[in-house]
């Protein structure tokens, strides 16, 4: 790390930051509808986004600053194992092609804002809906915290993070400012702010990756050279484990882990509230299907980005904290001004998802905890007000989390969050296709999955941590090492199926289903489907 502040890079960074701040506040005027005081307006951008806005919004949402820092950092640390992010994002699109249009249709027909809304409507169970909502909020919080970790990494490398002996307030001031600004425009503009800023973010990201993937290999003597050096580095023994640091291709033992991580993460991704928020904000069912054919462009970018991890090794970057590897690579290889552009890309890349995530978590709280349990007759205006306030609270919570606790705590929780959120899959995706499963069985399956996942993750040790040392453990009965989330998911499904048979046999009361089969295929323009501004709270039209 260079000593002192990198002035040029910092100036460029601040320029972009100011530009998106202005955009964020102006966004509330963009495509404004008449009734601003509804959750559909603030929390779903009026459900009006077309193919391209949705594409940027989803891309900005799913490929976060943390992704940009963590994926190459994982490659930098251990090689091939970190590349699972690529097959993971490949598998996501066929999956969403299959089930998201159905969720879109039923949500538009009934005015659902969150996944829990759907689960409650489908299974007539507030308990199950609450379980899905709480899981969603719990899984999203650490994710927001990690976006802050991403900004911190960039600030550190630019030299504005302060040294060891700097007063904590001065040290964290830049982060506090960044987050204050983010909170303010999310509060005033809702989902429109990240949707607009996502354009800037992704344009910057694509430029940076394109330049990095051409410029850096030229400076390092080509890919042959890069991989040769990386291979050498991985072969060296790690003193902490007594094993080689990593490998260029996964060995036999690592293949189960690789495949289960890819599949489990793919299944989990669209269970996250923020992905659903971005999806439901789209204008029509077709927008979603069309998007599955253009979203893979991001996967390609992610693959290229992952290769930067090898370049960091070949460039001789030495960092104690792996998260700093990529920002450090940029600072070492790029001229100062372009390093500033790259840092701005990562910084803004943190703001977009953080905004969407806090909106999504706030929507869940408002719709499925506040309205269902606290104030049943809340008006749309009240809902919006609560949501805005909660979005602030969520962000303050995430900030406090990052500032007071060790970074590894946020990473541990994010890992757990991925395992947890996958446990809502049977109720949500299962519910979209069949109502065969019993609501109590789904709740029991969820509980078993959550419990098993948490306990198993707690038991994973790594050289640096006694607990939560990773997301893979031995799969009971198979003996291979696999992703805990997927094992928990299989258990969850088994429990759900078995209990459904039992509950049906004893004729346990089923909840009331307020949806009908045709709701799942309805499209904008069909009778009863309002393209914009459905009335909130009205179950049926």
């Amino acid at each position: 790390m260079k000593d002192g502040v990198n002035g040029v890079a910092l100036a460029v960074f601040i320029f972009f930051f100011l530009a998106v701040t202005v955009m964020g506040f102006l966004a509330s005027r963009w495509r404004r509808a008449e009734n601003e005081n509804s959750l559909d307006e603030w929390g779903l951008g009026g459900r009006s986004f077309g193919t391209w806005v949705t594409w940027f919004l989803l891309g900005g949402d799913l490929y976060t600053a943390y992704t940009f820092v963590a994926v190459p950092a994982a490659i930098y640390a251990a090689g091939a194992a970190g590349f699972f992010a690529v097959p993971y994002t490949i598998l996501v699109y066929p999956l969403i092609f299959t089930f998201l249009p159905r969720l879109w249709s039923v949500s538009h027909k009934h005015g659902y804002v969150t996944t829990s809304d759907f689960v409650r409507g489908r299974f007539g169970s507030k308990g199950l809906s609450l379980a899905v909502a709480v899981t969603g909020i719990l899984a999203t919080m650490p994710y927001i915290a990690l976006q802050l970790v991403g900004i911190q990494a960039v600030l550190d490398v630019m030299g504005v993070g302060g040294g060891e002996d700097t007063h904590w307030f001065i040290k964290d001031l830049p982060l506090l400012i960044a987050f204050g600004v983010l909170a303010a425009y999310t509060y005033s503009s809702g989902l429109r702010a990240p949707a607009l800023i996502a354009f800037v973010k992704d344009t910057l990201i694509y430029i940076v990756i394109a330049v990095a993937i051409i410029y850096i290999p030229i400076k390092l003597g080509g890919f042959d050279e890069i991989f040769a050096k990386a291979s050498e580095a991985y072969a060296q023994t790690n003193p902490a484990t007594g094993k080689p640091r990593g490998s260029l291709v996964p060995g036999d033992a690592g293949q189960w882990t690789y495949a289960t991580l890819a599949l489990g993460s793919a299944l989990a991704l669209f269970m996250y509230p923020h992905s659903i928020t971005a999806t439901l904000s789209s204008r029509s069912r077709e927008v979603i299907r069309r998007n599955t054919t253009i979203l893979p462009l991001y996967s390609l970018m992610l693959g290229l980005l992952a290769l930067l991890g090898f370049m960091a090794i070949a460039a001789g970057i030495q960092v104690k904290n792996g998260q700093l590897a990529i920002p450090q690579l940029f600072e070492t290889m790029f001229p100062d001004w372009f390093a500033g552009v790259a840092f701005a890309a990562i910084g803004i890349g943190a703001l977009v998802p953080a905004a969407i995530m806090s909106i999504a978590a706030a929507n869940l709280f408002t719709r499925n905890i506040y309205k269902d349990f606290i104030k049943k007759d809340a008006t749309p205006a009240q809902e919006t007000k609560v949501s805005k306030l909660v979005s602030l609270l969520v962000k303050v919570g995430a900030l406090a989390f990052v500032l007071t606790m060790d970074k590894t705590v946020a990473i541990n929780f994010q890992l757990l969050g991925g395992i947890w959120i996958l446990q809502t899959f049977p109720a949500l995706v299962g519910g979209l296709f069949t109502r065969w499963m019993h609501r109590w069985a789904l709740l029991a399956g969820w509980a078993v999955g959550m419990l098993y996942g948490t306990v198993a993750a707690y038991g994973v040790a790594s050289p640096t941590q006694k607990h939560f040392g990773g997301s893979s453990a031995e799969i009971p009965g198979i003996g291979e090492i696999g992703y805990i989330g997927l094992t928990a998911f299989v258990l969850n499904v088994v429990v759900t199926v078995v209990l459904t048979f039992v509950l049906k046999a004893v004729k346990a009361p089923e909840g009331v289903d307020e949806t009908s089969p045709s709701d799942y295929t309805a499209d904008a323009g069909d009778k009863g489907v309002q393209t914009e501004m459905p009335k909130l709270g009205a179950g049926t039209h």
Partner: protein
Amino acid sequence: MPEVTQGKQGTITPLRVVIALCLFAPFVAMLWVSSYAKTEPLFAGIPFFYWYQMLWVLISTVLTMVAYKLWQLDQRARKGGDAR
């Protein structure tokens, strides 16, 4: 898993089988890790393991596009025959 029994009539037509295959193929390719966990052959200095998976990003995109087009065809045929 991909399932294409959407719509009022869940009949399996050859078209829908093709759609299902297009959506299912990436799962087979990507989860069969041992089929691509090797270094050779290199492409522009990049080991097979990496470029093969990136190639699959493109292949799966094409497959999803085909599925999308076929799906539109299927929907049009269904609506035409529906006499609504």
